[in-house]
């Protein structure tokens, strides 16, 4: 591949379309915590997802402009996770890579970063992705044990070592259970969302309805073969392990609430294991490039990255719900692009909880909320037939940093398919909107267009 544009470092490349193209994607089926990938590390899974992408698009020995990925639960040994994965992927080892972490928004962020570099003409190709494992999560030891171990490594005499060891107490040896509780509030994401759910008056039925649709839509998308070109099986897993194609409203209704079950309002707790995402393992990747780079290799252009916006809310002081930043990022993004919800054929709202989708949509439609908090006009109602049409995180699972790339990859394929099937004029765009909420009161929104 001696003549790839990456090797020649052009001055400022001519770009027919300044927007980065989504060429394709690959992910591994998402596993349940302790399931099919219980012995797989983040590096194993990210390498597998990258290798599948390389095989699908014949990228062996290609030097790409850059690769960006990351993990939320990351072991310290994985300090250079993405670069290590690139070295094991079949790509040209001269392909650079960097790690990114923006909680559950990580791989929307990496798509954004790579797309920007492409749009600026700095690179002509790149891969964005993310990976997470809750099965192989790093275990943290107590601070006292950690400090003692560090001192031990510096100790010079046996006496010093013995002195340090005898100072340890049994309690110091207990590991600190890994969790993703908010450091500022000490509350889990579920407890936070229980508060938001109550505030917006979201019913249990409405949440279960979202969950049921997620499973049904994901199962139908598998049956239609949508994922034949989006997923490469891994370790014997062929489909997402959390998918329950045969679940019903009745089965979902029987589950007991697990969050918001303490305190005065415990009676109307509504978040269950059925309408909250399961802990998951998995990895996802997206191939991006200029139109010209794709054309030179005979690769398709499924969609283009139009624009993106991030937002954060002040959840720590209780001014806003932890997972409500999507209610801010999306209106700002649409205002900048002069678009309304009706301009989108597909709307992808990450299902951290079914109620996240519902509270986000309720906020977009709420005049009072929009004018007082966002400072923009209300967006109106979301056409439910355009919402998460191929399922989302409730059914697929949610390996934190992999979810964004899963959504971008799936949405790009849906947009491309619709564009082909509609037979509309090339000038008539087919658009998709993404909103992914993240820990720390954040969210990332993105627009794709085919």
């Amino acid at each position: 591949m001696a003549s790839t544009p990456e090797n020649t470092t052009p001055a400022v490349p001519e770009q027919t379309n300044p927007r980065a193209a989504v060429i394709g994607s690959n992910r591994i089926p998402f596993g349940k915590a302790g399931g099919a990938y219980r012995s797989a590390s983040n590096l194993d899974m990210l390498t597998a997802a990258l290798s599948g992408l390389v095989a699908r698009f014949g990228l062996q020995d290609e030097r790409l402009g850059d690769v960006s990925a990351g993990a939320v639960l990351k072991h310290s040994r994985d300090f250079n996770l993405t670069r290590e994965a690139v070295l094991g992927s079949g790509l040209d080892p001269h392909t650079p890579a960097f790690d990114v972490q923006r909680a559950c928004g990580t791989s929307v962020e990496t798509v954004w970063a790579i797309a920007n570099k492409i749009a600026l003409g700095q690179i002509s190709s790149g891969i964005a992705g993310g990976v997470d494992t809750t099965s192989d999560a790093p275990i943290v030891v107590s601070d006292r044990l950690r400090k003692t171990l560090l001192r031990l490594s510096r100790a010079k005499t046996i006496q010093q070592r013995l002195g340090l060891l005898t100072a340890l107490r049994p309690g110091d040896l207990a590991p600190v259970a890994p969790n993703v509780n908010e450091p500022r509030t000490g509350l889990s994401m579920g407890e936070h969302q229980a508060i938001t759910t109550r505030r917006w008056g979201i019913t249990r039925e409405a949440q279960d309805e979202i969950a049921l649709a997620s499973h049904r839509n994901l199962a139908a998308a598998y049956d239609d073969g949508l994922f034949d070109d989006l997923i490469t099986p891994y370790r014997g897993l062929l489909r997402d392990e959390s998918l329950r194609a045969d679940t019903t409203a009745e089965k979902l209704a029987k589950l007991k609430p697990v969050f918001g079950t303490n305190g005065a309002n415990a009676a109307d707790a509504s978040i269950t294991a059925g309408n909250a995402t399961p802990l998951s393992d998995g990895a996802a990747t997206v191939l991006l490039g200029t139109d010209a780079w794709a054309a030179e290799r005979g690769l398709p252009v499924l969609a283009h990255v139009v624009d993106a916006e991030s937002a954060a809310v002040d959840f720590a002081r209780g001014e806003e719900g932890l997972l409500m930043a999507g209610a801010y990022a999306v209106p700002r993004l649409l205002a900048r692009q002069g678009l309304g919800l009706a301009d989108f054929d597909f709307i992808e709202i990450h299902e951290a909880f079914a109620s996240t989708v519902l509270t986000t949509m309720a906020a977009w439609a709420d005049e009072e909320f929009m004018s007082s908090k966002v400072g923009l006009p209300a967006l109106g109602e979301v056409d439910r037939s355009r919402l998460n049409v191929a399922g989302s995180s409730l059914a697929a699972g949610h390996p934190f940093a992999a979810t964004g790339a899963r959504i971008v990859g799936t949405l790009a394929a849906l947009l491309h398919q619709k564009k082909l099937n509609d037979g509309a004029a090339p000038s008539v765009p087919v658009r998709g909107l993404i909103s992914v909420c993240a820990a720390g009161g954040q969210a990332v929104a993105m627009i794709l267009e085919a």
Partner: protein
Amino acid sequence: MSDTYLDLVNSGATQQVAKTLGLPRPARLRRTNTDAVDHPLLPGPVLLLGTGAQADATAEALLSWDLDVHRTLPQHEVGALVLVLTELEHPEQMSDFALALGGALRSLAPSGRVVTISRPAEGAEPQVAAARHGVDGFLRSVAKELRAGGTGNGIVISDGVPSDSPSVAGALRFLLSARSAFVSGQFIHVTTPDGATPADWTRPLEGRVAVVTGAARGIGAAIAQVLARDGAHVIGVDMPASGEQLAEVMNTVHGTALQLDITSEDAGQRILELARSRHGRLDAVVHNAGILRDKMLANMTPEKWDAVVAVNIAAQLRINEQLLAADDLGPEGLRLVSLASTSGIAGNRGQTNYGYTKAAVIGMTRALAPRLAEQGGTANAVAPGFIETEMTAKIPPVPRQIARRANSLQQGGLPVDVAETIAFLLSPQAGGINGEVLRVCGQNLVGQ
């Protein structure tokens, strides 16, 4: 999938025991060294027997490959014995040739080659036809007398095909080389002067785009590897469920993975679109994907019968129709190879469904051959015998040992042996070979 017996009789003390007891001693076959393909082409010089224009053209071809060619038996070991019988007009003339070959057999090196070059009996006068067809029984008998991994095969050149046609040389080179390690007792028919001499004999598929179905494992993965070694860009197709292995194979051969159920209605279109968009051409398709659903006919179920028909023959027919409807494939026409099986030739107990489809593949191949020839393409089939794969490793030990030894080479073939034969049939130097069913079976005792 290893053959422990073969290892034992070829090494250490057990080798001596086997020798003393007179046990069958299958040899380690000479196979292609991927670091030095076709080099050396033979384990020794060639003794060329016979006279006339074909013998002279053959000598020239051999010399062009830098081989040491003798017309009389040298004092040392020889790598191959080539017997040109194209001038044979009466059975009484065979004596000199047969005895000359016989006198040279003991000089043949391990994994040596015997190749006859003759003409077809069809349409000839009775005594000519007798002389020519006699070669069939002669060569197959010679092949059974060879030892130490030696093979015997024939090339049958149709009347009117010039002696220096690319496919005559192509077939000869294939049969001499390590590529044909497990091919024995077979005849390759060169029926037209078509085909071309490759620019580089070691990379005859350079620049070509080849699709291999069932490429995730076993014989399919080996086909992908050999086609890539010979220069082709491979598009590997397999079921989405086999995607992990498929991606692995494609990354090792620098190919492209296509997760696709070949029984889907638009499978041919999907293959065509991918080849066109990525490479602007499609030169070759290997229909390798196949399934087994063994059951005695009396116990056969509709599911088992229909699944085998759907994958093993119906899918191929539909894909071929979709490919043939396209008018902008490769510049040299479409080259097809389908996997048949000895079960489709000789039949096999418990495999009525499989045998039906594998014989159907042969029928389809023969019917496609003239149609593809119109655009310069070919359609051939390869029928593997007992090959060491994950599939045959599941046969119970005793029947497996019997099946493995029931051929002249007294061992199972390897997936690469099937792959080598397929690569040859797809190569430019095989353009004059069309509608053939070539067996890769070590001269299995069943069928021809």
